[in-house]
């Protein structure tokens, strides 16, 4: 157990902040805090990093309470949302900064040691580059190298990919995972992008308004959401109720459309997105969203009468 948060609470006012946060993180785990803007993700990270003082609760690192230590004394390192790279230092100097102060190397030795990490993130050749001249992706890698170089056992990452375009984001996601695998660093990752959370994490902590709603593996979260909030947040959902009043969620991609003239559903809306086509079917009051993948989506037109086939649905626990 590298990190344990016990009943951690920090409220800015009545409504905003984080309350009764409990989480145990194993060494080498990749944990994602997932939730909408304002739910308290950054607050949690800042509490762990030491930039904020908790109102109550404990932060145990390897069993020791570090709540009262200043940031510079915690074996934790943060990759900030916009990287917070030092604009007056070059790539190598940025990476060396943490080695120098965190690991207490001389300036010279720190610069030497930094080279390895610049190499690790694939930026060899850019050592002397000015931060301002790097692309967003490169900056992100420098930030990562800088944090990893400190040798901190726990890395906190605050939406490190949120300012990049989709293609780069997907690419860097893979790289990040790769680096984690190589360095075996424990990581706590913050995002509001469910794809990022689902694809990267060992476990996901879904948050809402400062509280933890669900903790689980990606598949657990996606297929066994504890309530409709989680279900909605990690993907699109149709909600069904059976005769007994049980509620189910039905993912649009787990439904098939079956060609059936005179079927009870009518195609009301159709949006072509290339890799998939999104349909909205209507049966009186009932509306079902269905996503057909690829060429399969080509077969139907607005106004067609069709039927549906449900491939999978999952029962919700809440009312």
């Amino acid at each position, binding site marked *: 157990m590298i990190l344990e948060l016990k009943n951690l609470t920090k409220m800015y006012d009545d409504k905003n902040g984080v309350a009764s946060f409990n989480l145990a993180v194993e060494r080498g785990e990749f944990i994602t805090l997932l939730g909408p803007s304002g739910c308290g993700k950054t607050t949690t990270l800042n509490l762990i990093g030491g930039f904020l003082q908790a109102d109550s609760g404990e932060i145990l690192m390897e069993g020791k309470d570090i709540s009262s230590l200043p*940031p510079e004394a915690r074996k934790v390192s943060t990759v900030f949302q916009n990287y*917070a790279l030092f604009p007056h230092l070059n790539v190598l100097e940025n990476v060396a900064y943490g080695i120098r102060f965190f690991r207490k190397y001389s300036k010279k030795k720190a610069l030497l040691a930094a080279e390895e990490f610049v190499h690790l993130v694939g930026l060899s050749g850019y050592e002397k580059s000015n931060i301002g001249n790097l692309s967003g992706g490169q900056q992100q890698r420098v930030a990562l190298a800088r944090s990893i170089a400190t040798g901190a056992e726990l890395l906190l990452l605050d939406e490190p990919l949120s300012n990049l375009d989709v293609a780069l984001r997907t690419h860097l996601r893979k790289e990040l995972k790769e680096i984690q695998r190589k360095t075996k660093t424990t990581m706590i990752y913050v995002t509001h992008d469910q794809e990022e959370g689902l694809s990267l994490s060992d476990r996901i902590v879904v948050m809402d308004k400062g509280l933890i709603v669900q903790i689980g593996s990606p598949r657990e979260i996606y297929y066994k959401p504890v309530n409709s909030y989680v279900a909605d947040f990690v993907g699109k959902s149709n909600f069904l109720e059976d005769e007994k009043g049980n509620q189910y969620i039905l993912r649009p991609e787990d439904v098939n459309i079956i060609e059936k003239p005179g079927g009870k559903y009518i195609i009301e809306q159709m949006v072509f997105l290339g890799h998939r086509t999104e349909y909205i079917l209507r049966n009186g009051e009932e509306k079902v969203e269905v996503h057909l993948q690829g060429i399969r989506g080509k077969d139907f037109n607005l106004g067609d009468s069709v039927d549906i086939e449900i491939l999978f649905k999952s029962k919700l626990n809440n009312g």
Partner: protein
Amino acid sequence: MNRNISYSSLLEKAIIILLIIAFLLFILYPIAGLFVRSLTEGGQWSLFYYKDLFKEENIELIRNSVFVASLSSICATILALCIGLYAHFKGGRIRDLIYRGLMISMISPPFISSIGLLTLFGRRGLISYGLLGLTLNPYGWHGIVLLQSLGGIPLSAMFMMAGLNQIDSRLILASRDLGANPWQTLKNVILPSLIPTILSVLFLRFTMNISDFTTPVIIGGRFNVLATEAYLRVYAQANLNGAAAMTVLLLPPALVAFYFYNNNLQKTNTLSDRSKVLDVETLNYKLPRLVNFISGTITLVFFIIMVVQYGNIFIQAISRNVSGKLVFTTDHLHFFQDRHLDALLRTIHMALIAALLSTLFGVMLSYYNRMRRIPGMKSIEFIGSLPYIIPGIFFGLAYIVVFHNGPIKMTGTLIILIVNCTFRHVSVGNKAANATFENIDKKLEWASYDLGASKLQSLVTLIFPMLRPTFLTSFINAFTACMTTVGPLMLLVSPKNLIISVLMFSEVSNGRYGQAAVMGLSLILITFTVNLIAMALMTREKRITR
């Protein structure tokens, strides 16, 4: 539709041309006129006044000037940095309090501090002698350095606070996260990030100090600098051409410093990332103990001096100092009422108009240069900054030289003072507007055209309203400057257009501090009131736009 557009664009062209003409006519032409005069002797072209410019005494003067200006600039910068750091990282109400205090201490004319200094710390000063029994000699370079440093602190410290505010607070977080303690963070992140600001403050102070003659005249004693010498050539020796020649010596260091100032100012603007996650309160960063103690002490001492100085001005106004003892009297007040009330009203009148015009011109100039990138406006902007750089007294002289006859004869009128003040401070509004335009999305103007508004309509309905806060701040600054300026106006006054700051300077240099203090007090009160009004307008503005 077409006709409308061409009419409005013609009108705009006319405005631009008038603007250019105004800058050429009221800045470049007088300066050139004075320069030409200095190249003549008895109506003939001659290098007479430049011949012995580089003789040994003048070299000595240059050395003195550079020495004193550098030293006071460095002192002011360091002290201002300490105050800025202290205020910024204390945050909250202390920060606001210090900021207000700095604003207030900025509104007294610089040479009025010398009254305070002399009556408090002079050879028979109330504190040095009356309280401590010491006999100090404040006259000399150390007096100049002390006064120029003190005088430079308020504006410089406000610059520093602005600069610190622009630092992305995440950098500070990151530094500490990477294991650097508060001192290492200060040294490796905060100060390096502040370097452009520090340099621009340093160079601005140098530009101001090297051309300042009022302080050395009053407190320099036997220590002479170039600016005083030039002033004396005019004021005492009536050697106008020689004085003009002497300014030529002053120009290169001032221009160089100004160049660097400008350069760095631009850097401070572009380096900043305005999206910040944490404000100082949540940042939880505290200055290293020693730095905190030292800068706190400096801040405290500075404000004590300011309080004592202002209090002293007040006491001076209602008393006489007789060998270290105070005797109360209302003589100064009565005298002021009888003699100087007219001048005060005239000064307010002048400063209001000049501040308004100079802000307007400064903003328009900036608009056509920065937003519209009209070719040639860059040079006009440089011309606009000249009066700010060259020693004030020469800007005044230059006006006399070219505006004493001919079609634009203005000498002896209030208008010449207004025009002079307007263009002397035009770069205040210009700089402020430049900074604002830096942050305004250029697309806004496109959007306005796109929605059918002509260029002029856009200027009036879009640019001006958006600049209102900038207008107000520049107006305050220009107004304060106009109320307290002496240099350029000293020779422009005549019985009909006498103004209070010039009167005050002559009282100070005659050693009649009581009279000067009353005038100083009146200036401070009025400037302060105008400041308050403008600030009230501004906060109302904020409430509306939030």
